[in-house]
């Protein structure tokens, strides 16, 4: 049972990481242009 003291907070922390990452992605407009983001990879910046 002593493992619970470690495992439960760990599970929660990992879950919160995922939630935080989703919120961050939404706030930084990662989902605003799904088609364009894929295309922008192909642009070379050779200035």
């Amino acid at each position, binding site marked *: 049972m002593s493992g619970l003291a470690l495992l439960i907070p760990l599970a*929660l922390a990992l879950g919160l990481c995922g*939630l935080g990452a989703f919120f961050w992605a*939404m706030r930084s407009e990662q989902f605003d242009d799904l088609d*364009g983001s894929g295309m922008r990879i*192909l642009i070379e910046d050779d200035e």
Partner: protein
Amino acid sequence: MTVQAALAGTPVERSLLAVPGAHCAGCIRKVEDGLAELPGVLGARLNMTTKQLTVDHAAGLQLPAIVGALARLGFEAQPLAAGAGPASNRDSRELLRCTAVAGFASMNVMLLSVSVWSGAEGATRDLFHLLAGLIAIPTVAYAGRPFFRSAWTALRHGRTNMDVPISIGLLLVTCLSLFEALTGGPHAYFDGAVMLLFFLLTGRALDSIMRDRARDGVTALIKQVAPGATVVQPGGRTEWVKAEALAPGTLMVVAAGERLAADGVVESGHSGLDCSLLTGESDAVAVGPGASVHAGMLNLGAPLTVRVSAAGADTSLAEIARLMDGAGQGRSRYVRIADRAARLYAPVVHALAAGAFLLWLALGAGWHQALLVAAAVLIITCPCALGLAVPAAQIVAAGSLMRAGVLVKDGSALERLAEADWALFDKTGTLTLGRPELVEADRVPAELRPVLVALARSSRHPLSQAVTRAFGTEELVPATLIDISEEPGFGLRARWEGTPVALGRGAAADTLAATFSVAERSLVLRFTDRLRPDCPLTIKRLAELGVVASVASGDHARSVAQALRGLGLTAQTSMRPQDKLDAIARLQAIGRKVLMVGDGLNDGPALAAGHVSMAPASASDVGQNAADAVFLGDSLLPVARAIVAARRTMRVVRQNFAIAIAYNAVAVPLAFAGLVTPLVAALAMSGSSLIVVANALRLRSAAQ
């Protein structure tokens, strides 16, 4: 940052433009880098999903300059009205955030619950219940807000909706479970509460995303009528002024190819105007000094100087917008099928829960036990499957329709489309393509074609453009012409290898004809506004569906009869926007559900008044805004296809309701008997939701 620093102090403006031609990584780069070189531009970002370009620029830089720069880069761009941008997606974002929180919570609470179900006891069970409560209570407070808000609004107005039983159930279950957890009871329903939230929010988020996606698609196609005009200042200087800032009495210069931004009277210049946006008639109208002109008309010929008589809210355009506002009110009274179901459902659920509570009290159970049973009844009847039944089916069907070229704006449009039993078509631009096409193009001698194309491509007149289109597919090198001049009201003149050549107005009153002459030889070119492909087939399909089709056109009887020969449709002609409204009101008074299909600005009020409405993608922005659905491409067949898909969708929605009711018929007696433990509730809830979603997925090919 250096650019911004250099321009610090100058006011910055953000403009939104639609760039429908962009389609690859190269386009992104060309547009963004090309605009960055324009002085005054701080930054440009092209969104490929919505095909919209956001430009941050100094306030001194005017929109036509940006459009001009884009044209030099090879992209056609239309300025969009401010506010049409992504700000309108805020609702979906909040719902998505709530869904993410509920999803996270339901996973973690389920982790704890599974341990309890598999036999945790004593202090461990109490600890797990408390931990689950610690996760679930903030989640309900955060992710439940959309439901609480809507339930509160309904209750305050003395109504009830689906969200009332949901909110009461959620709050009751959470409070009772907290009590259980604190007193060390055996059953806590925290997992049921957050799972319920997760499923319901998924349904809501789907509904909202569907609305946004179709709206973005439509905004990308929308062309603003005229964002402004070039105004002559005292002293002869010209300046570009936004449409809403135009004042009566000012002089504006309207170049060929521009739309008028305000009503007015022509001061000088002769030209032809395309009024199809206002009247729906395809023929160009010749105007000269003294003629009164209206906002939204397109100048086809030479530059005109116009003295503004009415601008902004006083123009005839704004008058049509007011008609539309009034006409749309009837539709906002339409009650969606989920809400109609909720009206029956909510009182039953409340009565059942109250009945269970009283029954157990009467049978001698304690209030605590009786409340637990009532809560179990509430949570098991909570319309989990019902909440998903409608949006899941509608979003799958809308996705299928979108692939088939029909953008449906929201779920309620699909519901109303399924009910339509009368289709009222506009003629110009709806049944027909709305652009003249050259007939018998092979009558033009091969050696003269390069001359004809060279002449035609130097003009923006619709007939010239039709000529360019007709020979555009052939490999021919346009001849070299000199001294090309366009004379409004007549046409084009030029010299080809010393010979005078001309392309001008036809001799007869028939305006869909032109005369092409080389030296003394002359040839009459005939044009026609062709019917959309699949027109007869669509009418036949509609008849098979039990939908009566008729035509209401703003055009004259003669041209309507000529265009629609052989279709076997009844038609009303020379109708003004108000007449079309009246025609729809008459049909609806006798109980018909009218599907209005139209494109022009003159159809705007009728599109808003119809029970449901569709517009082709070539329609005016007003038409596209007012319509519930927009169909892409030339064919008319998507109209019939959309009705078929909508009816299939409603069939699946009704099946889903039946499944949800059957599930309740089994589960409610169990809950009444006090047999519903948190484990049973979790299984029943996810089981019924999965079945409903799986049934909705059958609509993937609904539009084929």
